[in-house]
């Protein structure tokens, strides 16, 4: 199958194209040199005057698995009015803040996205995550595995055996068909099982005598030792608290010079402010990011309206429940992890919500290098991923931004840096923060660009002054060279693949892990691992 997307203005930052007119040739799902395609037998798409970008790459989204599905079940009221009817061979579904699986695939591809990372799965329920993935077409995926409160790892740290932690992590990634190490409130989720939390990097994890700092340092070291394609993906301690900016800066200092990704930084950018309104500390954290080229972040931009908060950070979710009231899910997962869910509405007239909104935008505008700050709403925590076009407009259009800023609560406007920030992202920079940058940080060599050898995931947009309208309705989206979206509507389904890593480990650890299972789990060792044969579409990504 051959395809030519001809004459478009191509934004392919990795290959130095910033709107130059170029042709993209595709054969068997890959981008190829022009000479490899027999033009007489290729399907030709006239892209003259259109904007051509690589398919979007999502670096952090809660899209599939136990916690996400509990969020779907929790909120029938959220689905109503957001249904999608069955058309032809496509499936029906329900949307809202946590869409059903098939519709999630359609909605991402209808914005031009083709690769999505599931941000947090507890190992014990990874099998569930992979089952849902098989029902989510049009996207390639990877799964981040939560390890920041894992008993085996904390024991290895306590016993001074970092090599054992390293080999276990390698085993665990293979057993869960995971893609990256995720750290969520290290030590705090374990302490929550005792009704407590951690507040400082040197607080003790109950029963283990280790600290959040030791967990972070060990897993960052393990990540380097195993040569994983992605970096440790960190949701630090104190998320949402007025101590978060301080401990986040301290975390960054602890891992200074080591590769690490700090996710949904907006939620961790607060200091003590007057009258219980946290003070946004975007400037301080942007400075820390600017100073350390080894670091990447995503923002977790607040979008006004309904959201469903869901994280593996059990104590955070309980705090949110105490603050916001209403429904609360908690799920403690044996030996590994936890999590919770609280529905929420972000209002521009609420000073706390509005402060979060402008702090996120300040981070985007104060971090100098677009290759190290990525577009996310920490879906569905700060807003649904379907809001990305609105966020893009806020970044590209300072008049629109100013207009929205003038409508937020007056106390959130006080002390704001946002009115002074005139910067407007260019289309090329949008291509970086939504494609090239995340792909590079994830170590996905065939994603986020359109050079020869890249996967033929391509989004074609008609340029408009209203960038929200532009990015909400691609003219065409191709997944592996197959047309899946036309004029903003999904027209076909292709199965996505699941990227996973399988770094080698010392096989002798398996007997120790097996023995550990006898007392640590209610599932037998033999039934824990997700085998390659259990999954229909997988692709290993090399380590080292």
């Amino acid at each position, binding site marked *: 199958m051959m395809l030519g997307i001809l004459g478009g203005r191509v934004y392919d930052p990795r290959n130095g194209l910033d709107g130059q007119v170029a042709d993209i040739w595709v054969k068997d799902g890959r981008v190829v040199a022009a000479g490899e395609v027999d033009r007489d037998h290729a399907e030709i798409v006239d892209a003259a005057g259109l904007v051509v970008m690589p398919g979007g790459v999502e670096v952090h989204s809660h899209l599939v698995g136990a916690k996400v599905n509990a969020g779907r079940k*929790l*909120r029938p009221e959220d689905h109503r009015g957001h249904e999608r009817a*069955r058309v032809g061979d496509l499936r029906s579904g329900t949307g809202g803040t946590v869409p059903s699986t098939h519709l999630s695939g359609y909605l991402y591809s209808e914005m031009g996205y083709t690769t999505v990372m599931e941000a947090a799965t507890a190992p014990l329920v990874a099998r569930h995550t992979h089952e849902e993935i098989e029902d989510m077409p049009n996207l390639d995926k990877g799964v981040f595995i939560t390890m920041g409160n894992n008993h085996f790892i904390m024991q290895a740290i306590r016993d001074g055996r970092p090599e054992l932690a390293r080999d276990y992590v390698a085993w665990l990634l293979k057993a869960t068909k995971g893609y990256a190490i995720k750290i969520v409130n290290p030590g705090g989720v374990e302490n929550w099982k005792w009704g407590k939390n951690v507040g400082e990097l040197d607080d003790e994890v109950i029963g283990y005598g280790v600290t959040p700092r030791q967990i972070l340092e060990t897993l960052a070291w393990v990540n380097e030792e195993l040569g994983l394609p992605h970096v440790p993906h960190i949701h630090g301690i104190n998320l949402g608290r007025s101590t978060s900016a301080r401990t986040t800066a301290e975390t960054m200092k602890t891992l200074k010079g080591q590769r690490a990704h700090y996710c949904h930084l907006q939620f961790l950018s607060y200091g003590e402010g007057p009258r219980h309104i946290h003070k946004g500390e975007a400037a301080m954290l942007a400075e820390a990011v600017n100073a350390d080229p080894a670091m990447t972040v995503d923002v977790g931009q607040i979008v006004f309206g309904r959201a469903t908060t869901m994280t593996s950070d059990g104590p955070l979710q309980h705090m949110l*429940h105490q603050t916001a009231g209403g429904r609360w899910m908690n799920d403690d997962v044996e030996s590994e992890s936890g999590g919770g869910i609280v529905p929420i509405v972000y209002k521009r007239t609420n000073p706390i919500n509005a402060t979060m909104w402008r702090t996120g935008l300040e981070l985007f505008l104060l971090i100098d290098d677009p290759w190290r700050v990525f577009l996310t709403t920490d879906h569905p925590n700060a807003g649904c991923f379907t809001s990305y076009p609105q966020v893009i407009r806020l970044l590209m259009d300072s008049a629109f931004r100013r207009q929205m800023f003038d409508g937020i609560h007056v106390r959130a406007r006080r002390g704001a840096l946002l009115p002074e920030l005139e910067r407007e992202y260019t289309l090329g920079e949008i291509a970086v923060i939504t494609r090239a940058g995340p792909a590079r940080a994830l170590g996905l060599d065939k994603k986020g660009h359109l050079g020869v050898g890249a996967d033929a995931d391509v989004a074609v947009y008609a340029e408009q002054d209203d960038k929200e309208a532009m990015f909400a309705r691609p003219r065409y989206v191709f997944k592996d060279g197959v047309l899946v979206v036309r004029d903003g509507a999904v027209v076909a389904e292709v199965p996505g693949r699941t990227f996973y890593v399988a770094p080698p480990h010392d096989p002798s650890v398996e007997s120790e892990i097996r023995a550990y299972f006898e007392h640590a789990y209610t599932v037998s060792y*033999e039934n824990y691992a997700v085998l390659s044969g259990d999954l229909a579409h997988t692709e290993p990504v090399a380590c080292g």
Partner: protein
Amino acid sequence: MSTVVEHVACSFCGCLCDDIAVEVEGAHIVKVKRACSNGQGIFMDYDPRPRRPLVGGEEVEWDAAVAAAAAILRAADSPLIYGLSSSASEAQRKAVELADRIGAIVDSTSSVCHGPTGLAMQAVGEPTCTLGEVRDRADLLVFWGCNPDQSHLRHFARYSLNAKGAQTPKGRADRTMYAVDVRETGTTKKADHFLQIDPGCDYEVLSTLRLLVQGGEPEGETVGGVAVADLKELVERLKSCRYGLFFMGMGLTMTAARQLNVAELFTLVAELNEYAKCSVIPMRGHGNVTGADQVLTWTSGYPFAVSYARGYPQFSPGEFTAVDMLARRAADAAVIIASDPGAHFPRPAAAHLERIPTIVLDHGPSVTASHATVLFPTAAYGVDAAGTAYRMDNVPIPLSQVIETGRPTDEDILGRLIEAVRT
């Protein structure tokens, strides 16, 4: 020559114990180790002989049965797909796909057991945990309106009362157990404290517990037949325990206030977390009824009682629940997967099921199967077919194929029906 298959999961109940050893000779199971008496039956009573499908009681080829079933579905205006709880999630996904493609109503046995639990979760949330947390941490157990001593026979040993864990090295001696029920049962006999409440008074007692947690003082000396002093003692224990655990069953979901009972309990558990850790786990019955909730939720957004009649999912318990669809005579054909509504539904619903054409997928005999218009004798997941099931705490467990019989799976047949109704 026999071989032993180890680490097999038993698909009988929501415990999904996965430490079973099954000894097989060819296609015959000769011995089962570690399973409870219910689990023994899953394996030992299985008839592995090949069977052919039936149409109108007559044996036919598989292709002919698929064609007959497809004809029924094509002719139906309001087909119902029901059951799912003793099948695997792979088949459940196909069942929902079939419903989506033909505009059917799809419902699982959840609607006649823990459906109200799902409604309560939607109303107030649910603080819960996996069974390993119970084993490792729980020093205070409250069993309310459930009787695992009869229904989930290894629950006490593997996960709760007698299990030994990190913080409970002495097992039973490290735990305090309460049972709340309207009558004495095997479970209440094992409890340190049995609170026998008057039938229909669960909501009253639960709301009194909430009042006591908040420091209020109820009127009178008893509530729902229970001494207030005993409720006060329970509240003090709950507020000062290391990790409290409620297990709840159909004594709450299928009596008077139904989902209001359960919502009151879930709210109590949430409020207790201001003082001490506390979680609740619903005692799900059938082996993969939890998976039916999961699969329906990820594909449609809703856990049961889903209609695709309008071309997209709609959720309406009481309307799209199978008993109501049948009793109202609103279904004109039915696909019944691995369940026996003919035996268990109220008479008006079961009677309508006998009037309409039915397509039944089951691995064994049942009342429903005996009335089937088209019967597909499929393989049993966890015996002669592999698949995935979800434990009562939502942990996914692989089911093994321990013997080879060549029977098609529910997934195979539903996949063929999807293809057949397309053309």
